[in-house]
């Protein structure tokens, strides 16, 4: 990785700016599809960009009892976590910029770092709503993290390596969605949990705890969290598409697969009611884990033969 290509990768193409733009574009597709499913018009194409620009221009009010360094640092850490996670993932069908054995675990860790930052931001601002929101975010992380991780490690075991690029190339010729269907379902639902899409959006249930953990955030902080969520959306989709839907070898395949995955996610999302936090935890620990363990059982038996 000589210097120039690294800088270009980090700042321009698969990294920074294009990733942010891609994230916002995917967020627009998300909101537009949801509107389509609900028989209404939906936002214009530049709405997420407009929201971010507006938030960046807004004044940032820091609650006086909150710890200033944490208040400012957490959004930046969240966005940084999201962006670095994108480096190991085959974005836009290209080879991932960095890849080393075991980068699947690092990516997943970086993605959950983002949710952790939101939880910490909630407790740090000492607002009643954000306190409850933070506890819900962290409770939900503990509930979906384990099954989601196991569901993604299934194919890794099948491919015999923890490196995303090798798993992706292995996945190209044998479609893991057929070999491990249950694992795919748990990964899909886990992705919905990670992205806090309904029915798992208890942490930011605006009818109960107005904006959940991010109630006290405004201006730049909220813009960074907003961008981090958009990046997490695109990274999560690429990860699951790369592993389960037979790899993303070229940009066209990448677009088709991720958008198809997004369509199914939105379809599922528009059908369900928000679950209470205890119901989500119950759902994950009762059904999610058992399903993924069954999948692993089958996997081990197949590996043994």
């Amino acid at each position, binding site marked *: 990785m000589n210097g120039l290509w690294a800088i270009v990768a980090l700042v321009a193409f698969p990294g920074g700016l294009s990733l942010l733009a891609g994230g916002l574009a995917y967020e627009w597709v998300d909101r537009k599809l949801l*509107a*389509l*499913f*609900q*028989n*209404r*018009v*939906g936002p214009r194409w530049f709405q997420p960009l407009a929201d971010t620009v507006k938030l960046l221009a807004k004044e940032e009010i820091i609650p006086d009892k909150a710890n200033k360094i944490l208040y400012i640092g957490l959004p930046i850490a969240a966005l940084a976590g999201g962006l670095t996670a994108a480096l190991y993932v085959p974005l836009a069908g290209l080879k991932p910029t960095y890849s080393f054995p075991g980068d699947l675990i690092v990516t997943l860790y970086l993605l959950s770092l983002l949710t952790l930052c939101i939880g910490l931001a909630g407790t740090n601002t000492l607002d009643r709503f954000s306190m409850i929101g933070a506890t819900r975010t962290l409770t939900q992380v503990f509930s979906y993290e384990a099954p989601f991780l196991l569901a993604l490690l299934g194919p890794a075991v099948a491919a015999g390596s923890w490196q995303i690029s090798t798993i992706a190339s292995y996945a190209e010729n044998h479609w893991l969605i057929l070999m491990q269907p249950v694992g795919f379902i748990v990964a899909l639902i886990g992705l919905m949990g990670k992205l806090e899409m309904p029915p798992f959006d208890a942490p930011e249930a605006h009818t109960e705890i107005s904006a959940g953990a991010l109630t006290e955030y405004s201006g730049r902080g909220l813009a960074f969290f907003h961008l981090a969520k958009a990046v997490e959306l695109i990274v999560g989709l690429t990860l699951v598409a790369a592993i389960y839907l037979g790899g993303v070898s070229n940009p066209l395949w990448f677009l088709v697969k991720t958008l198809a995955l997004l369509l199914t996610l939105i*379809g*599922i999302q*528009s*059908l*369900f009611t928000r679950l209470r936090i205890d119901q989500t935890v119950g759902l994950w620990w009762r059904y999610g884990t058992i399903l993924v363990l069954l999948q692993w059982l089958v996997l081990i038996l197949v590996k043994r033969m």
Partner: protein
Amino acid sequence: MKFGTMLSDVSSSLFRRPATENYPAVRQRNPARLRSFLKLNPESCTGCGLCALDCPAKAIQVTMLDRKAKQFIYTYHADQCLFCGQCVETCNQDSLSMVNDQWELAALDKESFSVVLRDVDYAAKVLAEKPASGSETPAKA
């Protein structure tokens, strides 16, 4: 205990135009019984002021100058009006009615809401317009 009972709605709306109308590009048709701006038939109005008495929002103002010569000014304040139609019910000369084809009543300044529906020199204006023969009916104010 079914899952996703809204599936039929959601899937059918994939191929259907959104329900939200694109106003002002798409103009809503006006319901026939819409009660909008007040309209006065100046001839039959005797200036009795019963409508002003009954108006819940005091949107009608009848300043009587000379009862015998039926000289009065009838001003209607559209910004206070509730569009309830009680004045139309109360008037026993049936000289009031409400427009039903115009409901975008926004205005840039407050004065343009107060409309004089019948002027004091209405009688004089009518006489002036009537030609010498005085045969056809006076033009509507």
